[in-house]
């Protein structure tokens, strides 16, 4: 059935002509594919990388600030008092991960649960979490079962601990964790001493409460599932354990390079803003006087991430621009060659009523259609490649990584590919349009 309205007939014809020349289709398609593939993959990786970081920071408690400094605890507290900061908790982070649990799996690999140990002087509002890019972020406490560490526990230095849901699931799969003991510092093979060495006494802490997983813990859970399903070597998963500050200072007194933080919480947003401004001013002065302090707020962390993201995207854009110029030159050459090859065809089209605009439009349409096909294939291939590379990238970047998609991430590479084709086909199309019909009909 040939009957059709002219526009449909015309578009069908153009689509047919777009793919008629297999050599041009292949060469131009490859040129566009490579540029769009690299752009799409780069954009996906960059956006996903920063999306993870941004999400972990967005979970940070409102109206809280984290202060880290080289000052001793007394000096630090005096400094906060002078700035009018009333409510804060003294937090000590044991940076060296402590093994909690290790077992051999059926396939011969070892599964080990490592924990960061946080000792704090207060857990009522926010609990600290270490993000994968090294920031300490306080998140709201959501108690799932049991109780939180109390003032009595803090004053007596009780040997108690609060764990998160991931830790509870790993250590106590039957669900009963409250009242159980965890051993902090068991080595990877589950032994507390090596034959021939003195017995090592590991700290035993009673589990008194379980809190909801933070975003970081949820990401680690996903990473664990991926690791278990892969053929990679021994599996390690990270988590956090929270104990009273005095308990940490007692049990881990020989820990290497512990880091101290002051987590400042404010009920009143105005007071938060005032205090943060003062702390930032102190940070500026202190840096010039050699008394370094660092103030981290949600806004500051997000701004730093946004700036890094913008810088990375700018670098990516420059690389892609260069790639597009290189592939665009080859696309333009191929199009010129195609025009030369089709000069008699141009003549006959003009003889049958094609205007200059028709000829120019036809050549540009053909290039845009080829670019569209190549760009769609490139975007799909890049997403597949990123998915397949998730595990590898997680290992290389040393933190959990999962592909994050957005409409802009899918559309922008498509537009770049088509824009490249459009720009590179303008000159050849105009050249084709201006070929004299009598010359073209004589062309052999």
């Amino acid at each position: 059935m040939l009957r059709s309205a002219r526009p449909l007939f015309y578009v069908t014809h153009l689509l047919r002509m777009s793919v008629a020349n297999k050599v041009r289709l292949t060469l131009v398609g490859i040129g566009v594919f490579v540029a769009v593939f690299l752009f799409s993959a780069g954009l996906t990786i960059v956006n996903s990388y920063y999306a993870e970081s941004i999400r972990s920071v967005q979970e940070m408690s409102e109206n809280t600030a984290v202060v880290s400094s080289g000052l001793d605890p007394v000096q630090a507290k005096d400094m906060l008092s002078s700035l009018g900061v009333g409510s804060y908790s003294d937090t000590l982070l044991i940076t060296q991960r402590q093994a909690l649990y290790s077992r051999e799996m059926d396939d011969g690999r070892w599964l080990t649960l490592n924990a960061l140990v946080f000792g704090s002087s207060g857990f009522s509002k926010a609990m600290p979490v270490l993000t994968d890019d090294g920031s300490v972020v306080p998140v709201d406490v959501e108690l799932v079962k049991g109780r939180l560490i109390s003032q009595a526990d803090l004053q007596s230095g009780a040997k108690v601990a609060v764990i998160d849901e991931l830790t509870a699931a790993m250590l106590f799969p039957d669900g009963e964790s409250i009242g159980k003991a965890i051993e902090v510092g068991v080595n990877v093979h589950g032994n507390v001493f090596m034959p021939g060495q003195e017995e090592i006494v590991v700290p035993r802490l009673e589990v008194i409460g379980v809190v909801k997983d933070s975003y970081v813990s949820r990401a680690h859970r996903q990473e664990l599932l991926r690791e278990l399903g892969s053929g990679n070597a021994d599996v390690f998963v990270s988590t956090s354990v929270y104990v009273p500050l005095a308990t940490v200072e007692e049990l881990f007194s020989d820990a290497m390079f512990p880091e101290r933080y002051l987590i400042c919480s404010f009920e009143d947003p105005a007071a938060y803003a005032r205090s943060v401004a003062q702390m930032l001013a102190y940070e500026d002065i202190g840096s010039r006087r050699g008394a370094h302090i660092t103030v981290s707020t949600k806004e500051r962390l997000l701004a730093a991430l946004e700036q890094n993201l913008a810088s990375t995207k700018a670098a990516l854009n420059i690389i892609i621009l260069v790639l597009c110029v290189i592939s665009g030159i080859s696309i333009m050459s191929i199009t010129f060659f195609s025009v030369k090859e089709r000069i008699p065809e141009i003549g006959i089209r003009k003889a049958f009523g094609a205007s200059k605009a028709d000829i120019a439009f036809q050549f540009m349409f053909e290039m845009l259609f080829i670019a569209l096909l190549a760009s769609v294939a490139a975007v799909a291939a890049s997403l597949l490649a990123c998915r397949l590379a998730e595990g590898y990238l997680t290992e290389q970047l040393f933190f959990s990584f999962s592909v994050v998609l957005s409409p802009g991430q899918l559309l922008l590479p498509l537009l770049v590919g088509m824009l490249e084709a459009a720009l590179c086909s303008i000159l050849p199309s105009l050249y084709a349009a201006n070929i004299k019909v009598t010359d073209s009909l004589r062309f052999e």
Partner: protein
Amino acid sequence: MSGVRKTYDGRRYVLDGLDFTLHEGQVAAILGASGCGKSTLLNIIGLLDSCTEGSYTFCGERMLRTRLNSYHQQRARDIGFVFQSYCLIDALSVTENALMPFLYNDRSITREVERRLVSVLDDFNLTALKNTKASLLSGGERQRVAIARAMIKSPRLVIADEPTGNLDDANARLVVEAFLSIARQGTSVVVVTHNNMLADEVACAYRLCKGRLEAC
């Protein structure tokens, strides 16, 4: 056409004071030696080129040199071409090549056009080849497709440059009959030919010599 002159270099005139009139439904054959200007004359008649001097009136409208680039719509609507080198698009089938004239005018592919296509393909023994790519056709088959393409939209004028050049006598006969048939329906035909049979069949035969047409 009146007093038409055409030069490409400003010195030698390929057409030099040519007068020519073609009425509706008339078939005119133009003969002449190689290089005498037959193709130039056809290009001017077909609004593909303009004359250097003189006047050309097509369907009552004076054709102006300065508006040459705007006559594509007129060609799309009123003129069909058969070129010496066929000028088919190899990537397209016989049917698609035949329907090419409908790309650039505002007519849709109606049931009437479908019927006309079937009739034209049948007239030129192309029905069996309708889905064959043009690149796979012989020279004679390509010639017949080019003629079918020129006739399919029932133009007011068909311009043919050596339309029977690669055809055997039987197929040449078909082409002559086709031209005479469309002429009877009101289409004018201008044919450049070396085929005496065609020249003998038409009412008007001219010889192009020294830039002017002389009746044979």
